[in-house]
C-alpha cells in the first residue's frame, strides 16, 4: 500500500492551557498551523491537502473541516476530517501519511485540536457509548479505564504505588516541555494522597482537560529533504480497533489491541527487541496504570514485569528507553490533538529539535494512540529513509 517514502518534515503546537478564552477554536488551530509552517519554512501555498480531526461533539461543531478553514488555511484545498475518539490524533496522522504514501499528494498538513474548555467532557464522552446498552451505565472515560487497571492489578499483583511511579515520571518530564499544560513535579506520596476518582484511579493518575492544537507536515521523498535536513521517516503504522462494547474486551490480557498493533509494526519494520532497538517512545497513556500494562503489550518486558522496569528508571530521561519526554498525556490532553502530539513529539525527537526535552541520539522513535474501546494505533519513525 505504501508506494511513496514519506517523512514528517515540520511540526507545530500551541502552548497548551486548561482554557484559552482569547481564541476561538479556529484561531487556536491557526496558532499550531502557523508554527508548523514556520518550522518547515513553508507557506500555506506549499500545502497540497489537509487532514483535520477532533472529537467534534466536544465542541458541538459538526462541519469542522470547512468551519475551520480560516485556521487551517484549507480554503479550496482538498481537506478531510476524521474522528475516531481518543485515537483521532493518530488517525489524523495515519491519514496524512497515507495521503502522501499512496502517491496522491506530496505535502499534507495534518491537524489535531480540541477545545476541551467548551463542554463537559464527561457528558460528551458518555455519548460515545452505545445508547441502548452501555451508555446507561458507564459515564465518561475514567470508569472504563479503571476496570482495566483493576483487572491488571489483580492478575499481576501490581500496586497503586507502581502506577503512581508512571505519573511521577510523566509529570517530571513535563517540566522540560515549554508547551505542556501541567509542569509541576509530584511525588509518589502526592499521587497516593490525591482523591480517589474510580478505584484504583486517583486524581493525579489521570490526564487533564486541555485547549490545544498540533500540526504536522508529511512530505514525499521528492520534497522531504528539501524541507527538513533530518526528516522523520515513517517506517510503519498499524491501527487495531477490535472492540466495540466493553463487554467484549479480554480482561485477562494486557491491551490486546496494542499487542496486535505493535507485533504488526515490528514485523513491518524488522524490529526484534523493541527495548533495545527503539530510542524513545511517546505513548498515549491517559492514566498511570496504562504505563505498566501497555508497555508489556508493547513487548518491552514480560507479563507483570513493567513495575520493575519503571522503578529501575529504564523509562526515565537518561534511561535505556525514555518514555514521554514531553510529559505525555497526563500533562497535556487536548484530546483530538493528543495522539497527533505523540507522533509530532516522536518526530521532534528524531529531528533533534526537542530542546530541554531532547533525548540524545534518537534514530528510532515509536508513537502510540489510544481511544474508544481499548483501541491502539502505533507509528514508527526513523532518521533513516525506508528501503
Amino acid at each position, binding site marked *: 500500500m505504501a508506494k511513496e517514502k514519506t517523512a514528517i518534515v515540520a511540526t507545530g503546537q500551541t502552548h497548551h492551557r486548561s482554557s*484559552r*478564552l*482569547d*481564541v*476561538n*477554536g*479556529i*484561531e487556536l488551530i*491557526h496558532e499550531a498551523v502557523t508554527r508548523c509552517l514556520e518550522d518547515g519554512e513553508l507557506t*500555506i501555498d506549499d500545502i497540497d491537502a489537509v487532514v483535520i480531526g477532533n472529537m467534534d*461533539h466536544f*465542541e*458541538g461543531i459538526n462541519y469542522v473541516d470547512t468551519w475551520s*478553514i*480560516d*485556521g487551517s*488555511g484549507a*480554503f479550496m484545498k482538498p481537506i478531510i476530517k476524521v474522528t475516531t475518539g481518543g485515537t483521532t490524533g493518530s488517525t489524523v496522522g495515519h491519514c496524512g501519511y497515507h495521503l502522501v504514501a499512496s502517491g496522491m499528494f506530496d505535502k499534507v498538513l495534518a491537524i489535531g485540536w480540541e*477545545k476541551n*474548555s*467548551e*463542554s*463537559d467532557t464527561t*457528558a*460528551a464522552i458518555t*455519548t460515545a457509548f452505545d*445508547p*441502548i446498552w452501555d451508555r446507561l451505565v458507564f459515564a465518561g472515560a475514567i470508569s472504563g479505564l479503571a476496570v482495566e487497571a483493576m483487572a491488571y492489578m489483580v492478575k499481576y499483583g501490581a500496586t497503586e504505588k507502581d502506577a503512581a511511579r508512571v505519573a511521577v515520571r510523566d509529570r517530571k518530564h513535563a517540566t522540560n516541555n515549554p508547551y505542556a499544560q501541567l509542569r509541576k513535579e509530584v511525588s509518589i506520596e502526592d499521587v497516593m494522597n490525591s482523591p480517589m476518582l474510580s478505584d484504583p484511579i486517583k486524581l493525579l493518575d489521570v490526564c487533564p482537560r486541555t485547549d490545544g492544537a498540533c500540526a504536522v507536515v508529511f512530505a514525499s521523498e521528492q520534497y522531504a529533504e528539501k524541507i527538513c535536513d533530518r526528516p522523520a521517516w515513517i517506517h510503519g503504522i498499524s491501527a487495531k480497533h477490535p472492540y466495540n462494547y466493553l463487554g467484549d474486551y479480554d480482561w485477562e490480557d494486557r491491551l490486546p489491541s496494542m499487542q496486535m498493533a505493535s507485533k504488526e509494526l515490528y514485523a513491518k519494520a524488522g524490529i526484534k527487541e523493541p527495548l533495545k532497538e527503539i530510542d524513545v517512545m511517546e505513548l498515549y497513556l491517559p492514566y498511570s496504570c496504562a504505563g505498566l500494562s501497555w508497555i508489556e503489550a508493547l513487548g518491552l518486558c514480560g507479563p507483570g514485569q513493567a513495575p520493575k522496569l519503571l522503578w529501575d528508571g529504564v523509562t526515565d530521561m537518561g534511561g535505556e528507553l525514555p518514555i514521554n519526554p514531553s510529559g505525555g498525556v497526563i500533562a497535556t490532553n487536548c484530546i483530538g490533538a493528543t495522539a497527533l502530539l505523540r507522533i509530532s513529539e516522536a518526530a521532534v525527537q528524531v529531528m533533534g529539535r526537542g530542546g530541554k526535552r531532547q533525548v540524545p541520539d534518537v534514530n528510532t522513535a515509536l508513537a502510540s494512540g489510544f481511544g474508544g474501546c481499548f483501541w491502539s494505533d502505533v507509528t514508527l519513525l526513523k532518521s533513516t529513509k525506508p528501503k
Partner: protein
Amino acid sequence: MAQKQQDQELLQYESRIKVPYTWSVGEVGSRFLMELKENRKIWATRCPSCDMVFVPPKKTCTYCFSDIHEWVEVKDEGVLQTFTVVRYETPLIPGKPPYIIGIIMLDGADTGLVHLIAGVPHDKVKVGMRVKAVFEEKRKGHILDINHFKPI
C-alpha cells in the same frame, strides 16, 4: 415507547442528549460584540492583502490566509440581499413563527450578515430594500444585541 410487529414488540429507547457548551468567542469576536453592547456600533476587520471587509470580523482571511489587524467601522444599515418568512415552528428559535430571516449586506462590508427582519408586514419585504439595525435597550455582548433589522 413500543410498536407491535406481528407478535413482537418493537421498542424504542427515548432519551435526550444534553451537553452544556461554553464557546470561546475569542479576542476578535469579543471586540465586535462589546462594540455592539457598549457603543451600538458594528465593527469589521479588513484584510491587508485582498481588502475584504468581514462582518462578523475574522482574525485571518479566508481567501488569502493573511493575518488581519485592521478594524473598520461599517454602517448599521445596508441592503437586504434575500430573505424568507419562516412559517414552521421549532423550539430552537427565539420567537414564534411567522418571522423573517434575511441576509443583509451592510454599507462598507463585503460579507452578508444573517439576521432577523421585522417592523414590516410580511408581504412588504422585498429583496434589495434598505434596512437598519434596531438595537436592544439592554445589551449583553451578543449577536442578538441587535434585536432585528427594520426597513428604512
